C-alpha cells in the first residue's frame, strides 16, 4: 500500500498488520458513493434480501419475482439491501495541551498513532478517510477520499502538526456537523479540556446529522494522579496565565474537580450517543484500538 519507504514515528507496521484483521464498522447506516461493507439506508444489489414490493410501471421487469406471481397471481418485485462504503472523518486536537506527556510520549503523538491506524484500516477496507486538525478552530482540513495515495496526505498532515493555542472544540464540532454533507464516522481524538456542558450541543448537532461519533479521550497519567511533591509553577500550555501552587495543599481539590469533570463528560457523551473511550496514554494504543474495533463489531449498525 505504501508507495514510499519513508518511516513515520506514529506508524508501526506490526501493529497495523495485526489490526488489519479487525473490520472497522460504523454503528449506523452510512451513505457512501460506492459499494462497500457498510450498510446503506437505501435498497441495493447485495445478496441480503430486504423485502417484497408491488410492481409498479417503470420497474425493470427482470426484477419481477415469478415464484411469488405463481403463488399469489400478483406481480412483486424482490428488493435487496445496499452495501456502501463509509466516510471516516478523523478529528485530531492540536491545541497546546496535547503537547503534554509525562511518560515519554505526548498526547499528540498518541493521537497520531490512533488516527493513523484508523485511517489505514479504513483505506484498507475501501472507505474514505479525511482529517481535520482542530485548535482555535479547524486549522487543517482534508476531505475524505478513498484513494490509497490520499492516505499519504493524511499521514503528512499528521506528521506536520504543531500543537499550539487553546482548543475551541464546541465550535469545531458545530462546524463539522455543518460541513460533512453525508453521514460519516467522526472519530475525535482529544483531551477535551473544556467544560462538559459546553460540549453537549456540538455532539447533539453531530447526532442530529446522523453522524456516528466516536471519542478517544486522551489523558496523561500525571494529569490523573497529580502526585507532585514540591511546590510547582504551572505554565499553561494553551497560553493562559501561570499558576503557583503547592500540590500537597490543592491535590485533594484537584482530584475532586477532575472526578466531577469526568463524570459530567461521561454523562454528556452518553446522552449524545457518543462512542466514548477514556484513554490513559501510558496504555498500549493497539489494545485501545482492539477494544474500539471489537466494540463496534458488536454494535454494527442496522439499516
Amino acid at each position: 500500500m505504501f508507495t514510499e519507504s519513508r518511516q513515520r514515528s506514529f506508524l508501526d507496521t506490526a501493529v497495523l498488520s495485526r489490526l488489519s484483521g479487525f473490520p472497522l464498522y460504523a454503528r449506523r447506516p452510512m451513505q457512501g458513493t460506492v459499494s462497500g461493507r457498510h450498510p446503506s439506508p437505501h435498497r441495493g444489489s447485495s445478496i441480503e434480501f430486504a423485502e417484497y414490493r408491488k410492481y409498479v410501471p417503470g420497474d425493470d421487469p427482470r426484477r419481477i419475482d415469478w415464484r411469488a406471481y405463481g403463488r399469489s397471481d400478483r406481480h412483486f418485485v424482490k428488493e435487496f439491501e445496499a452495501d456502501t462504503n463509509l466516510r471516516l472523518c478523523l478529528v485530531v486536537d492540536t491545541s497546546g495541551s496535547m503537547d503534554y506527556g509525562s511518560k515519554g510520549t505526548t498526547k499528540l503523538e498518541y493521537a497520531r498513532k490512533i488516527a493513523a491506524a484508523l485511517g489505514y484500516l479504513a483505506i484498507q477496507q475501501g472507505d474514505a478517510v479525511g482529517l481535520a486538525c482542530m485548535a482555535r478552530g479547524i486549522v487543517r482540513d482534508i476531505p475524505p477520499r478513498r484513494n490509497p495515495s490520499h492516505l499519504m496526505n493524511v499521514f503528512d498532515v499528521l506528521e506536520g502538526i504543531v500543537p499550539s493555542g487553546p482548543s475551541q472544540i464546541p465550535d469545531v464540532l458545530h462546524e463539522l456537523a455543518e460541513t460533512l454533507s453525508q453521514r460519516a464516522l467522526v472519530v475525535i481524538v482529544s483531551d477535551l479540556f473544556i467544560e462538559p456542558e459546553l460540549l453537549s450541543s456540538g455532539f447533539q448537532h453531530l447526532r442530529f446529522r446522523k453522524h456516528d461519533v466516536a471519542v478517544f479521550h486522551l489523558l496523561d497519567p500525571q494529569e490523573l494522579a497529580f502526585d507532585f511533591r514540591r511546590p510547582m509553577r504551572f505554565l499553561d500550555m494553551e497560553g493562559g496565565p501561570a499558576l503557583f501552587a503547592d500540590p500537597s495543599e490543592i491535590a485533594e481539590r484537584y482530584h475532586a474537580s477532575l472526578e466531577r469533570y469526568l463524570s459530567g463528560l461521561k454523562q454528556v457523551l452518553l446522552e449524545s450517543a457518543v462512542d466514548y473511550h477514556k484513554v490513559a496514554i501510558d496504555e498500549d494504543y493497539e489494545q485501545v484500538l482492539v477494544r474500539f474495533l471489537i466494540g463496534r463489531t458488536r454494535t454494527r449498525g442496522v439499516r
Partner: protein
Amino acid sequence: MSFLEPIMLAALPLASLPFIIHLINQRRYQTVRWGAMMFLLEANRMYRGYARLRQILIMVMRILAIAALIFAISRPLAGGWLGVAAGGKADATIVILDRSPSMRDAPAGRERGKLDTAVARLIPTLETLGSTRYVLIDSDTRSPRPFEKPADLARMPEVGPSSASADLPALLQAAYDYVTTNQLGRTELWILSDLRENDWNSDSGRWRALREAFAQRGQAVRFHLLAYTEGDPENLRLRVQSVRRRKAGDGSELLVSIKVERDRATEGKRAVPVQFEIEGARSQATLELEGTASELKDHAIPLEKGRDRGWGRVAIPADSNPADNEYYFTFEKAPTRRTVVVSDDPVGTRPLALAASISPDPGVVLESEVIPPAQLASVDWSTLSLLVWSAPVPEGETARLIEAFLGRGGTAIFLPPAGGEGGAFLGVKYGPWSDRPGEIAVESWRGDEDLLAASQSGRSLPVGELVVKRYRTLTGEFTPLASLKGGAALLARPATAAGAAYFLATTPTPSDSTLGSGGVVLYVLVQRAIEQGARAQGGARQLVAGVGAVDSSEWNRIAGGNDALSTDFRNQAGVYGAGDLLYAVNRSLPEDSTRLIADSRLSELFQGLDFSRVDEQAGRLGSLIEEIWRMFLVSMIGAMTAEAVLCLPNRARPARGAAA
C-alpha cells in the same frame, strides 16, 4: 511570667522554623508546562475558606509546639512576681523577717497568722528558685543567720513570733552590711512584713542613705516585698495603763488601769470580759467597750497579806491577733524615789529640789537632796531615780558615772551651766547665753509623749504660758521636746541606749525663766522624770520588748514567754525572774498603732531600686510561684495532636479510582 532558665528563651526564634521551612519550600518550586489547567484553576478557587484556615492552623500548631517546648525548658514560673528569677540562680537569698506582734494577726478568722503564712509561703518559693546561700535577718536579733536550705527556715527559732517591734531600716542596713562584707553577687532580698509604719519608720533619715547605698550596687540586689496589709478592725488591743499598790485597811490592794482599743466602732456597747491574774490567782471583770476605745480605771484587786511584790497578767478573749490580748506587769511596795540635784547654787535649784520631794501619791515616798559636784562620789547610784545636773558639763570620770547611771535605766536632767562653753555630753553641747533682751515664749512642744505630754484626760500642760528670759543654745543631735520662738530648743532629749537624758536650755531661776514660779510644768516634768527613772529601780520592773541592752540569758520564765529561748526572753511578752528582780516584758506602745506605710511612700523608699511587691493574705498557703513547665509540655502535646488531626486526609483520593 518569669523563668528560671531565661537564657533558653533565646531559642524562641526557632518557633518560626515551620514558617521558614514553608517559605523555603515555596522558594524551591519547579516550573512545569501543564495542560490540565482547568482543574488546577478550579482547585485553586476551592482552596479557600476552611482549607486555607486548616493550613494556617497546621502552621500555627507547629509553631506553638516548638514555642511550648522552648517555654517548657525555660522553666516558667506562675505567679505575680515579674522578673523574680530572671538570670537564673541567685548568689544569695536574704530573708528579712518582721516578727513584730502585729505579724501574728490572722484576720477574717483565718487559721494561720501573717508570720506563719509568710514563712510557709516563702519556703517552697525559695526551693523553686534556688540559691547558693540563704541568710535570715530577723527583726529581733537583726544579725544575719545563714541556713542550709529553705526547709530549715521553718525549724529556726528566729522565725517565731516576738513581742518586739521591728526596725526595717536597721534590718536593711544589716542586709547591706552582709552583702558588702561578703562581696555577694546577685542577691535576692525578700522582705516579709505587714507594712506597719511603726516598724518601717518611713520618716527616718536612714532610708535615704540605704537607698543610695543599694542603688550603688545597681541591679545586683533585688527586693521582693511580701506584704500582708490586711487587718481586722474588730481586733481588740489590751494595754495596762498603770498599776499602783496602795494600802487598804489592814492589807493592800492593786489598782490596775487598763485600756482596750479597736479600729472600728460598732453600734452599742460591747461587754469585754477581762481576766486579771495576780501571782496565779485569777479574777474577772467586764469592760464596757463603746466606740473605739474604753478604759477601766483603777480596778482594785486585793492582795494577800504580806504581798509586797509580785506579778500580774491581764487578758481579754482571743481574737484575730493573740499578741495584743495579754499584758503583763509587776508590782512592789514602792521604794523611796531619790533625786539628787548636783549644783553649786542651792538657791537656784531649789524649785527643782522641791518638785522632786513632793509626792503626788501618798503611797510613794520621795526624797531629794542638793549636793555640790565635789560630793558626787558619795551618791548611792543604785537607789537613785533622778539626777538633776546644774553644773558644768560632766567630763571624764564624772561623765562615765552618769552614763553608767543612764545605762541602768536612770533619768537625768541637765540644766545649763552658769558660765563657760564646756564640752559635749551625749552629743549635746551648750552654746553661749542668749543676748536677746525681753521675754521669749514657748512656740511648740511635744504634747503626745514624753515629759511634756498631755494629761491622761487629754489636757495639755500650760507650757505655752512659760516665759523664758535667758537661755543657752543647744547644739548636737537630739529630739526637741519644746522649742522657743525662733526655733531654739528649750527641752531636748538625745538618743540613749537606756535611761533618759534631758537638756533644758534655761534654769528655773526667776531671772532666767518662769519655770520655777509657774510651778505646774516644772513639777510635772520632774515627777515624770522621777517616775521614768524609778522604773529601773526596785525589784519589779516594766520593760518594753526589744528595747534596751538587757541580757536575758539568766532570766527564768514565770509567766508568758511561750517557748522562747532564754536569750530571747527580753523580746517575748511575759514575766521573768532574775535573782531578786522581776521583769514584766510587753510590746511597745507604738506597736498598737495600726497605721500602715502609704503605698506612695513605700514606692519612694525603694525608688531607683529593683523592687517588686505582692500583696498577700494571711492563711493563704502554698508557694508564691510554681513551675508550670508541665503545662507547656501538655500544650506542646496538644498542639502536636491537633496538627496530626488537621493533617489527616478527609477521604481516599477519588481521582486514583477514576484513573483506574
